[in-house]
């Protein structure tokens, strides 16, 4: 077992993404000696490139099912699992999910922090208010936006006069960078939505608009979401938080370090973590405090692999309330070229349906509507050449389908809020193990009927926008869950989605958003961590990633994970005196 000069470190962090990266930054700046263990490699521009195959089909940075597959089922009734492969992927490299992400960086709205108060209840779901409100997180949102660099987006008051979900009047500070120019599809979207009385605006993104922080601006090459940025214009935590943390001299970043156990001592305090290093050797590192930032799917897995005592951890709640968003979407097919592959993942969006219809049903589960595409590995309409081709069938009809679809489609989607349902969860698969020999994460997820009701309510609005954009025809994209390779059965036959004939079998797991599973709350009986993101029963063990979300909100989650991480790291530093 390897020791080091600093061992025990002040803080050991498992994971280097949105949660772990920001926590490492805040803690090293505060003077702590920090060790970050990342199971993936430390990659940079020399490893990246505008290459759909590498990132989409061969999982270069994504969780590679050839190394660590995950399994999937809709419910317990399906047996052990229905599918083994790529499920709820997230980047496996230094920077974690912020490397693959489309860099969409929203703050949640004040209503999102009091979801139960605002929306009420749903059968079988456990909608709750967060233990604190927007005002608590507001300064941390601002700090993160300035440190990593966000361009965009929602501004207060005057920008959206008279809108139903008007203004972000709760925003008091401006963005560090102005919004980016639109690509063609986004311009059509902006014009059409405005004509229909809606209020589009530039999607806020952590992508440099011209230069910032010693790195260049975006050159709109298109290979952004699901790719690492070859020019470092996309602000992942590797080129922002971790680079600054390293400059303090107090960061020991260990890539290729696969943590498989958290060891808790007889005194009930977390002592150390055990991991396998790049050469396959078993290692251990101790910390005065230990932070789990492994992602919504892998943090509960690590807790379960560690076999912690139920007297210390609320195992009845660990892994439960998994949320992945539901994505009612529309694809417009245009006779003219749209060439959506120029630019980046989401360039324009709107919030006009975010707060719901206020009366009638459905009464929960709306979100931001945005233009999307491209992202390697995604289905046609938001993917690249290969993923479009894999949905185009074979034989003589193949080239006809390609000519009709490639470059002629625009996908718009709502990031719909899915309710926290206790039976949607992550646990350990009973039979499948990874390349290291440990049980893999099993995802059990079934969409709540409310998701379908929202989809039905949203579909006509999406079709209206696409038609006003000039689409010859529109198709409704039905909600999809943890993997596209699993047909999702919905009430009334609304949602048949799956591989179909000759569709790709390695393309599953298109959904990356993942929240819940280590619920944050004040009551130890109904949550895993407290409002400081500290385990209720273990005074020096923290969860700092998307797993703590009590509800999902209707926006892409990364900026909120980062703001929570900043706040939790400050509180950790104070409580642990590091």
């Amino acid at each position, binding site marked *: 077992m390897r020791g080091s000069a600093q061992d025990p470190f002040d803080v050991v962090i498992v994971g280097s993404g949105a949660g772990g990266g920001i926590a490492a930054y805040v803690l090293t700046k505060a003077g702590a000696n920090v060790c970050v263990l990342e199971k993936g490699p430390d990659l940079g*521009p020399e490893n990246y490139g505008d290459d*759909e*195959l590498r990132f989409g089909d061969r999982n270069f940075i994504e969780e590679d099912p050839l*190394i660590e597959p995950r399994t999937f089922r809709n419910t317990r009734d399906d047996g052990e699992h229905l599918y083994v492969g790529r499920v709820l992927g997230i980047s496996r490299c230094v920077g974690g999910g912020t490397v693959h992400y489309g860099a969409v960086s929203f703050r949640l709205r004040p209503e999102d922090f009091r979801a139960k108060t605002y929306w009420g209840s749903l059968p079988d779901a456990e909608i709750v208010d967060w233990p604190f409100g927007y005002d608590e997180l507001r300064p941390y949102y601002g700090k993160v936006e300035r440190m990593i660099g966000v361009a965009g987006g929602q501004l207060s008051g005057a920008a959206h006069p008279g809108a139903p979900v008007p203004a972000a009047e709760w925003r008091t500070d401006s963005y560090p960078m102005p919004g980016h120019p639109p690509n063609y599809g986004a*311009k059509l979207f902006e014009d059409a939505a405005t004509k229909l009385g809606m209020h589009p605006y530039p999607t806020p993104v952590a992508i440099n608009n011209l230069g910032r922080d010693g790195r260049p601006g975006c050159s709109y*090459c298109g290979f952004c979401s699901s790719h690492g940025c*070859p020019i470092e214009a996309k602000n992942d935590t590797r080129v922002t938080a971790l680079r600054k943390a390293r400059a303090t001299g107090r960061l020991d970043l260990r890539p290729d370090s696969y943590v498989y156990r958290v060891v808790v001592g007889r005194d009930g305090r977390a002592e150390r973590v055990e991991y396998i290093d*790049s050469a396959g050797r078993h290692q251990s590192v101790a910390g005065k405090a230990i932070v789990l930032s492994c992602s919504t799917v892998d943090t509960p897995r690590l807790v379960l692999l560690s076999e912690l005592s139920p007297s210390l951890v609320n195992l009845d709640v660990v892994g439960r309330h998994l949320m992945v968003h539901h994505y009612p979407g529309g694809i417009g097919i245009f006779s003219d070229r749209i060439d959506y592959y120029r630019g980046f993942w989401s360039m324009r969006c709107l919030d006009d349906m975010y707060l719901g219809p206020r009366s009638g049903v459905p009464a929960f589960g709306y979100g931001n509507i945005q233009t999307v595409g491209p992202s390697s590995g995604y289905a046609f309409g938001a993917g690249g*050449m290969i993923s479009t081709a894999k949905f185009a069938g074979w034989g003589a009809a193949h080239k006809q389908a390609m000519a009709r679809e490639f470059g002629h489609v625009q996908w718009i989607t709502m990031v719909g809020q899915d309710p926290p349902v206790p039976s949607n969860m992550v646990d350990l698969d009973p039979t499948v193990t990874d390349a290291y020999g440990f049980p893999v994460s099993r995802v059990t997820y079934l969409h709540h009927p409310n998701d379908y009701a929202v989809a039905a309510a949203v579909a006509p609005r999406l079709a209206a926008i696409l038609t006003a954009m000039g689409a010859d025809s529109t198709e409704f994209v039905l909600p999809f869950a943890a993997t596209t390779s699993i047909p999702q059965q919905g009430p009334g036959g609304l949602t048949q989605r799956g591989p179909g004939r000759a569709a790709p079998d390695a393309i599953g797991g298109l959904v990356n958003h993942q929240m819940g599973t280590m619920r944050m709350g004040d009551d130890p009986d109904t949550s895993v961590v407290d409002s400081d993101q500290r385990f209720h029963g273990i005074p020096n063990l923290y969860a700092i990633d998307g797993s703590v979300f009590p509800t999902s909100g209707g926006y892409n989650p990364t900026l909120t994970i980062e703001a929570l991480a900043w706040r939790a790291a400050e509180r950790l530093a104070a409580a642990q005196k590091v």
Partner: protein
Amino acid sequence: MRPRLLTRRQALRDAGRMAAASALALSLPPWLPRPRGAAALAPSAQVTLKAAVARIVPASGPGDWSAADVGADNYILNLLSNPGHPAQIYAGGPYRSRFRRFQVLSRIKRIGWSREVKRLQGVYSDGLAQLDRLAGGNFATVPAPVQDAILTELDDTGSGFFSALYNHTLEGVYSHPAYGGNKDYRAWQAFGYAGDVLGVRFPNIGPADAPWNVYGGYAPEEMIQPGPSTQEAVSPS
């Protein structure tokens, strides 16, 4: 870096001609497979493979290309080569000029991909032998409608081999030529796809130090003005 005298649009129009000149200058066609160690498949199986990929994406008529014409079978052979140390899994970076310097796999990636390549070798050996059997001896020599009927039968019955053949053929046709297919970027050109424009520099729109002029990519004016710019796909980097 070339002088910034022309407008970018003019450069796009000229790019096709430049690309043709550039292609002639290459002594070794880059799409040819690099033989590594033992052949991934027996020579007869390679003939069957070529015939099969040509039916997944057939030519639409005389003068048109099929998956075999653009080297999708080469792509598959590259994938199947060197199972002990898979060597053509991840291209290099950051720009296309370095794609052919493939990355060395980490220990854990090598474990996963080595296992997968061995598995796929078995899938292809068995599957291609099955095609020959169903064709009464030699799949490559039976008429195209018979070949299609055989493949349809496998597709309809959920054949794992067919699934691999389908996915890999399309990957070979539409991935970057560094992986062995998409010869001369023909598949991208056919559908007006510019491909990887990062690292492909043209005279400028906007200031010379704008990111798209320094790094390649699209200027805002080009994002908002769609239309095929197929020349970019074959332009020199």
